[in-house]
């Protein structure tokens, strides 16, 4: 019976928020400041408890993280975001592409990584459509092309994009998923048709107007890869860039991004969007603040709570050492 209490409370709160609270729920700056101050005070209380010799349980840590992650969604704080050089260089490379350029968008991620990668992918798709780039979509991960479909739907919701009345097969095409990891990239180097005889709608390659004249990477002006692991950016660099000389930009999860810096510094990547912050920066540099920029406050609060708990843990360790 006790086990049921927490889920029941969560369900009741969700139902209350959904049916009772007027939408959209948004705290005023004063309320937001009070809430953030209370979280800060609670963390100080945790520190005092630790100094007093009481260790904090993991459930307490979970509650703090849950509060720090969720409440900022309802806060309307405007905080500055600085554009990092790797995001700026990606944007500059995209800006140099003339209208009508063919861009290959490789969606190499699945729903678990979508909260981090989908916002940047949506921002990229919206930007590409606004700039009249022709987008060819594919995926080395089975669910990648479905994530791309979500990006297309998100981009088409934009008024400016909707006004362009984009046509499938002419302005964009989804080639779907192909098994084979890096071998797919390798074979695309000689013939796209060999790997994607039909698109995701089962249309033969030769019947798609956008793909007329697209034989291999030499007919592609830019490749953008959204990656959450292997196969992903590293494979695209090793084969598409090093062997076939494509121009590659990448969007990676925050965990994966540090491993991509050698490629970035080596010039094999023209730019890199790293995690949620990379997505937020890309949204800002393209002038369309979206989901990623909106999530940054939540990420800031969660990071601060993690740092606070690491510090509290270290205080506990120092006290234990002192006692010994």
């Amino acid at each position: 019976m006790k086990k049921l209490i927490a889920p029941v409370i969560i369900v009741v709160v969700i139902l209350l928020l959904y049916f009772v609270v007027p939408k959209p729920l948004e705290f005023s700056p004063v309320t937001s400041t009070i809430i953030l101050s209370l979280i800060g005070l609670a963390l100080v209380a945790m520190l005092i408890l630790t100094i007093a010799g009481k260790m904090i349980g993991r459930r307490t840590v979970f509650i703090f993280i849950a509060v720090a992650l969720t409440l900022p969604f309802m806060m309307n704080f405007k905080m500055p975001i600085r554009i990092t050089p790797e995001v700026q260089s990606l944007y500059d490379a995209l800006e140099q592409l003339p209208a009508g350029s063919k861009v290959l968008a490789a969606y190499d991620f699945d729903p678990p990584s979508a909260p981090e990668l989908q916002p940047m992918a949506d921002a990229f798709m919206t930007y590409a459509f606004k700039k009249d780039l022709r987008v060819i979509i594919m995926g080395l991960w089975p669910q990648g092309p479905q994530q791309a479909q979500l990006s297309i739907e998100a981009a088409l919701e934009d008024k400016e994009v909707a006004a362009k009345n984009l046509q499938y097969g002419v302005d964009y095409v989804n080639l779907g998923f192909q098994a084979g990891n890096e071998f797919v990239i390798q074979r695309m180097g000689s013939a796209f048709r060999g790997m994607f005889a039909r698109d995701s709608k089962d249309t033969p390659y030769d019947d798609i107007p956008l793909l007329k004249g697209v034989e291999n990477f030499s007919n592609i002006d830019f490749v953008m890869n959204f990656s959450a692991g292997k196969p992903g950016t590293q494979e695209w660099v090793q084969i598409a860039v090093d062997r076939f000389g494509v121009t590659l930009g990448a969007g990676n999860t925050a965990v994966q991004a540090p491993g991509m810096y050698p490629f970035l510094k080596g010039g094999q990547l023209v730019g890199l969007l790293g995690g949620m912050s990379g997505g937020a920066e890309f949204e800002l540099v393209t002038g369309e603040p979206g989901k990623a920029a909106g999530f940054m406050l939540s990420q800031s609060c969660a990071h601060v709570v993690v740092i606070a708990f690491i510090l509290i843990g270290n205080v506990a360790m120092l006290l234990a050492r002192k006692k010994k």
Partner: protein
Amino acid sequence: MKRQIPMMILSTIGTIFVLAYFSPGLEELEKGGSIFFDVVACFAFFLGGSNLVRVHIQKIARHNPGWGYSIVTLFGFGLMLFIGLFKLGNPLGIAGAPTEPGSWFQIIFQYCVAPLSATMYSLLAFFVASASYRAFRAKNTEATILLVAAFIILLGRTQLGLVMTSWVPDWLSIAQIPNLAVFIMTSPNLAGQRAIMIGIALGVVSMSLRLILGIERSYLGSDS
């Protein structure tokens, strides 16, 4: 023969792939090899699916702990397979793609699979926080340096880092947390990553040579 045939296949294909990288004349052979790889990769889907069904049916039959979840897994697997194969609710009918917007397959993907998968992965935030609290200790100099670097990256990748050090004058801008984070990523991290990458590359080359030459045989199984 059980050992020699796989070793011969590996040596031949491996040698072709290495030579094809340097010799355009062997490209066609390389293509053939990669087609075989695609075929094998496709079989992995059948193998994975059948293995999933087998494991969960066994779990249900034996009433292992958590067998109820196996029913949910099999139900979800069967449902998606059925809807995807027969294209139920597809606006374009049986001729449309399974992922056609508005099809049941795409609706379930968008409103069930995607949020559920994201939720599972998001739990990491809680476990990472709890693990950091318990294990991330400044026990010695190296651990302290790692800890400080982690703090700078954690803050530097958020707006708070910028706000906290926005008062730092321009001539000392390197001391601003976001700039410190960029420095850590593009200098110490870069050096470490390059070292790891070179190490891995050397390991891959030596392991590949061992496999091609038939010295490494562990992939053949323990009875080999």
